[in-house]
């Protein structure tokens, strides 16, 4: 994430780039060989609220490398969700660039964005967002159901998250943790390259949270990148790397201050 830092001559950035933190050390070799799965370059997102323009993100650089788990943390209103929306191709930056596998996808249309989301990205939401009229298996197959839906794969994924005996249960018959595991299975049905999770443990108790996070760990072990947006310290612990956002900018956690 700090490729360009050397050029700026900013001491804080330089220091960070050379600091052998646990994740950047393992990630560094990949960075040179292959492009990041997802990358935000100098991304700014402004909203016109009517009362004035609100800048939710302000020149954020962020890379998600293959097979890493990254926590995006920060207080409410710091731009976490906006970051996730940009990474998930749900929204486009006002300025800056979004790259998927090195390809510039900043200005693609809705149709293409939908296709790319289905092919490359898995989503997990705080409120699970399961369709109440579909069984667990059908919920998992939902992203691909208009393309023929692979129900066998859906069942296999539910087995994998420990819900092999709940295939035909409706969401109302599942507990919160089970629902979130169904949601994780759903996020994997399209064999994504990255799973984006927005407060995945926000509605879960501690034990259940741990089970869900173990699930994410297993996902990452399959080579899928995982981005967790959270303010749950437990989640941060699980993640290999954490990026803190403050007021729409990336903060330097180690220095305890803001970069730029």
């Amino acid at each position: 994430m700090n490729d360009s830092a050397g050029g700026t001559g900013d001491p804080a950035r330089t220091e960070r780039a050379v600091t052998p933190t646990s994740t950047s050390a393992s990630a560094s070799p990949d960075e040179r060989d292959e492009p990041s799965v997802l990358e935000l370059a100098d991304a700014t997102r402004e909203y016109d609220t009517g009362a004035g323009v609100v800048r939710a993100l302000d020149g954020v650089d962020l890379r998600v490398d293959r097979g890493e788990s990254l926590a995006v943390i920060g207080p409410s209103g710091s731009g976490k969700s906006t970051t996730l929306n940009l990474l998930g191709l749900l929204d486009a930056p006002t300025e800056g660039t979004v790259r998927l596998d090195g390809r510039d996808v900043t200005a693609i249309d809705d149709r293409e964005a939908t296709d790319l989301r289905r092919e490359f990205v898995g989503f997990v939401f705080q409120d699970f967002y399961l369709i109440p009229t579909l069984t667990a298996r059908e919920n998992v197959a939902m992203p691909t159901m208009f393309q023929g839906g692979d129900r066998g794969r859906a069942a296999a994924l539910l087995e994998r998250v420990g819900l092999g005996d709940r295939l035909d249960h409706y969401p109302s018959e599942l507990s919160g943790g089970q629902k979130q595991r169904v949601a994780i299975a759903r996020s994997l049905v399209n064999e994504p390259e990255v799973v984006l999770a927005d407060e995945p443990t926000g509605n879960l108790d501690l034990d259940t949270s741990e089970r869900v996070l173990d699930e994410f760990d297993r996902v990452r072990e399959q080579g899928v990148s995982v981005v967790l947006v959270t303010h749950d310290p437990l989640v941060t612990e699980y993640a290999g790397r954490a990026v803190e956002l403050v007021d729409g900018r990336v903060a330097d956690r180690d220095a305890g201050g803001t970069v730029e």
Partner: protein
Amino acid sequence: MSGGADGDGGDDRSRPAPASRSAGVDRETGDRALYRRFPALALAWRNLRRNRLRSLLATLGIVIGVLAVATLGVFGNVVSLSAAQTLGGIGDQVIVSPDENAGVESLGPREVQAVERAAGTRGEVVPLITGGATARSGGSRTVAQLYGTRTPRTLFEARAGELPERHRQGAIVGPEIAEALSLRVGSTVEIEGNEYRVVAVLAEPEGFSPVTPDTAVVLPPGEFREQEFSQVVIEAESGDAAETIAADVRERLNAREQRVSVFALSSVVAEIARFFGLLSAFLIGIGAVSLVVAGVSILNIMLVTTVERRGEIGVMRAVGVHREDVLRLLVVEATLLGVAGAVGGAVLSVLAVGGLWYFTPVALDVVLVPTNAAYVLGAAVFGVLVSLASGAYPAYKAAGERPVEALRG
């Protein structure tokens, strides 16, 4: 990307599970197959079942609307057809008679020929000699209306016996005469001192006709003293033809001086038909208003349900379901409401029309006409179209919303 080994293992373990709950699987097989083949239809059906009462009420609106359009349409059609049947063939008939005010007493061969030319192939010309006489048989007697014609088949229908193609001998008697004198085919009737064998008995008339068969006695023209005709009836092939023929006859015979009077009811009948057409359209219009109101209720329900399911729709869009697929899903929901309502309304309207036939003196042959089926079918199709149109806007609105907005709640 997520290792195949894991997927295989999951597959193997997942298969026995459904088999062990075969009862549940059997129960849902139909639904499953539907889901796989037509995901939008299956999903729409489940969404409608989620709020059964609401879906039922929306459907009820369409049922009432379709019922109103179909029954009012059919009733109007039945009234119009019954009227047309009662008016019978008079719209198609032209009657040419001598203008007595002008001193013309009868129609000669020249006039008959002129009328025949005017009719051409568009109508059959029947010259008639008319008169009154007393008919006797056994001890009883009655007053009869005499008609002399060579071609009785054009104007009359027989109840018993057969009408001859060329009427050369014997008498054809009307139903009232037959009853009054107890006549049957083969009996003898005496008119003006001559005895005739009855060759046929006429049927009751179905509608109005200027040549009434009730008290008629039809004889060959040679039996009359007069050799000239007292009127000529033209049975035209249609009301329009009757009007043209009437105008043509006037031109041919009344061009220089008024010699005949020409009587055609076709324009009056056309006017009556137009009135019934208007009445029918008015009734259908009233029905259509109720159907449009039902459409508004579907619009309302679809708006409410899409707002309620905003997050769900947003997540579908986020995980890669296309806008058009969401649009299709919601339009299918509205259409399902419409189809259910239309089928219900059509069935009820068939029952209502059946009731009309059962409880009123309406004849079966005006109920079982293809146009009535067209009204029922048309109302059903209209009901589905109204639902589809009502669902289109909420569907468009919901499917078009950006997933980010929808997920924000």
